[in-house]
């Protein structure tokens, strides 16, 4: 039951969406004068959607955000950012491993960004072939960096070390940013305490059931309102809603101040994820701000097969518990002990209950079980992964 993914501009709304032959519906990102303000999934009949039939549903989906978008448009449509601009440059870093096909789409999207003096580097992480290296040869403006130690956080740290500009913007190799993505990211760094910015990630395609269910269960987008996270406004340990490493930017100087990413975490290790969220927690604990800016849109290609999807969800559970374990034991954030209970009681158990009894808003049980198994394994795999990392480092240092 695939869905097409489309952008819809409300000020220029089509009456019919009709190129939906092989789809049974469409996922629409709704925009108002370019600003993303909501999303909706509409069913298609005979390969088309008659938009007029769904106006009230669309209104409902955008209402809250549109109110303020309309005010902003009225007040500031002919004005630029009102803070004195500072000259700030970015290094865009793509960490990749054996995914040349996706990477090509990503690089093609990056080539469409307007020139703001950015540098682009690809960190090829412990590749099994030289396919990525060969691909990069077709992009003369892209710098190729080989990182032999396997692990996404190792690659991220390498990117921070390699970057020649003050801001390092990360995108996953299976994500395609919009052309104004970089500008929308960078404008937030006008505030000196903003050390990190995350953007909104939307699904690039919903071709398979796995992709649809992933988007439904754990959407990468965190809403259409800009959010500011700081120690005085929210719990610095609750970083689940901050955004994700697939679409984030940070100041290079952070690496010296709070250390880099935890190399025992995230993809390529036993913990499978969590490196970004653990890092966010340390940024907030140091008294800095993180901004979630939903106008910085990137399109992520979710895993296509059911097996990959279940594995991703499993990894999500493992990563969360692994990074909580690190915060508890290494950062001495003892109040993290309350988080598992809250997650279990307020989210996980209700999800199980609804999904088993087929109440509204149900999720595939295989996802829920996979996540739960991941959670149980999380603390153990963290210690195991840490041990492996230390052994590896020892070996390297002789």
């Amino acid at each position, binding site marked *: 039951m695939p869905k097409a993914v489309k952008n819809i501009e409300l000020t220029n709304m089509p009456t019919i969406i009709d190129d939906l032959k092989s789809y049974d519906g469409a996922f629409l990102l709704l925009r108002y004068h370019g600003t993303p303000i909501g999303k909706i999934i509409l069913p298609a009949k005979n390969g088309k959607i008659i938009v007029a039939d769904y106006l009230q549903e669309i209104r409902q989906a955008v209402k809250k955000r549109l109110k303020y978008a309309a*005010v902003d448009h*009225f*007040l*500031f449509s002919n004005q630029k950012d009102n803070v004195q601009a500072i000259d700030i440059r970015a290094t865009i870093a793509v960490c990749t491993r054996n995914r040349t096909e996706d990477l090509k789409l990503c690089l093609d999207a990056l080539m469409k960004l307007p020139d703001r003096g950015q540098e682009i580097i690809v960190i090829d992480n412990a590749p099994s072939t030289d396919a990525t290296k060969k691909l990069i040869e077709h992009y003369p403006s892209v710098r190729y960096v080989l990182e032999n130690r396997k692990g996404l956080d190792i690659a991220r740290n390498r990117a921070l070390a390699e970057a020649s500009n003050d801001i390092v913007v990360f995108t996953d190799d299976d994500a395609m940013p919009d052309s104004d993505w970089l500008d929308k990211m960078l404008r937030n760094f006008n505030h*000196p305490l903003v050390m990190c910015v995350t953007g909104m990630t939307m699904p690039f395609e919903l071709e398979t059931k796995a992709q649809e269910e992933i988007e439904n269960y754990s959407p990468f987008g965190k809403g259409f309102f800009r959010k500011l996270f700081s120690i005085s406004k929210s719990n610095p340990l609750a970083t689940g809603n901050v955004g994700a490493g697939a679409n984030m930017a940070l100041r290079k100087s952070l690496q010296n101040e709070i250390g880099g990413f935890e190399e025992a975490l995230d993809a390529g290790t036993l913990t499978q994820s969590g490196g970004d969220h653990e890092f966010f927690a340390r940024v907030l604990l*140091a*008294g800095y701000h993180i901004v979630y800016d939903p106008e910085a849109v990137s399109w992520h290609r979710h895993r296509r097969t059911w097996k990959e999807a279940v594995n991703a969800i499993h990894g999500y559970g493992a990563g969360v518990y692994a990074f909580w374990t690190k915060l508890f034991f290494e950062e*001495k954030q003892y109040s993290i002990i309350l988080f598992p209970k809250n997650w279990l009681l307020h989210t996980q158990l209700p999800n199980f209950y609804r999904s088993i009894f087929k109440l509204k808003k149900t999720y595939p049980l295989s996802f829920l079980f996979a996540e739960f198994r991941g959670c149980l394994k999380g603390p153990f795999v963290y210690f195991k992964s840490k041990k492996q990392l230390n052994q590896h480092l020892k070996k390297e240092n002789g």
Partner: protein
Amino acid sequence: MKVTASFIIPTHNRSGSLKKMLNTLQLQSYPLQNFEVIVVADGCKDDTVEMVRNYHAGFNLLVCELPGLGAASARNKGASMANGQYLLFADDDMELSTDFIKEHIAAHTNERIVVVGYSPFKLETNASIQRMSVREWWEEKFHEMRKKDHWFKYDNLTSGNFSVSSHLFNKLKGFNTSLLCREDYELGYRLIKHGAQFHFAYTAKAFHRDEVTNLHRSLQRKKSEGMADIQIKKLHSDFINKEAIYYLSQRSILKSVLVKGIQYFPSLMDRTASFGETMMNLFERLRLLSSWSTMNYRLHQYWYLRGLMLGAGSYKQLYEFVMIPNVLMNEDRKLTIDLEKGIKSAEDEIDRLKPIVIEIYYGKNFIGTINCEPGMEAIKGYHLRKILKDKFSRELSVLLFPDQIFK
């Protein structure tokens, strides 16, 4: 050689950090012979005076001693010795950027300008949450001022990093030395009333190496601020104190308990408050951050209220002091604008008529009123959009909602 700028540093027993600061003054890009530095050693018991006398400076360096009269007196004393056309005021614990003086002087394009510089709070590693929130407070304040459409207010003057023409400063007879604290706000208030034009210079940057602010000091200061606000109100009857109004207009049981408590059992209340302080330290150690934040807010509220009531004598007097509204009805300077005719024309109207009260309509719908209160700079057209966004977004959103899309 004529001296353009007089750099005035009041100091109190901090010879070490003062010396570092003199070193950074040597590195200024502004010609050293064009400025002088006046150190006012206020009640110093260390070697400050001797250190300054023996310091080999490339600029003219003066020092004088006071018996500990407070920063306001020290700054006034420095100003009275100054030969420069402009007075620059800084604290004794700042790390100046090399263009500091140059940027300050460059911003003085006319006699009425008051330049406020950027002083980011320098934080040590493993800082307490309290110090993190102090830094946040400062950065937020500076970030607002950096916006091109910022509407300046008396409390934008920060005594640790600003400059003013000596002519203007002397005309207003400098700082008021009778205040417990907030003498910078009070001067800012008089400056704005006198038609001064505030300007924020982001490039006039000096790191603030404040190593002494901690929770206890911050709470004690809150009490002094409450008392000082009453002093200011006694000096200027038209002074509108938003902070006090905000606290006093809250209708909560907690507030009534606080007020009654302060009235009848002040020492018991103070002891309870210091217990709260101990609790906060415990919360911080256990990393119970939301409990910490709540307690932080409550205790600051308590000490501020405590200071206000000490200053005013009783709650009733305080209430009268703070809450009796000042009538701002100035019919000749009232402007009605209709946003439906476009925001540009509204901006032009404001610049043309220089109003004190603005009534905003969108077509026939009343949106709200903007009052140019005393202590706020005269309103300009370019302030309008930000005011509308900050204060009237909700009202506007109802009227501007593009419902035609869904029909």
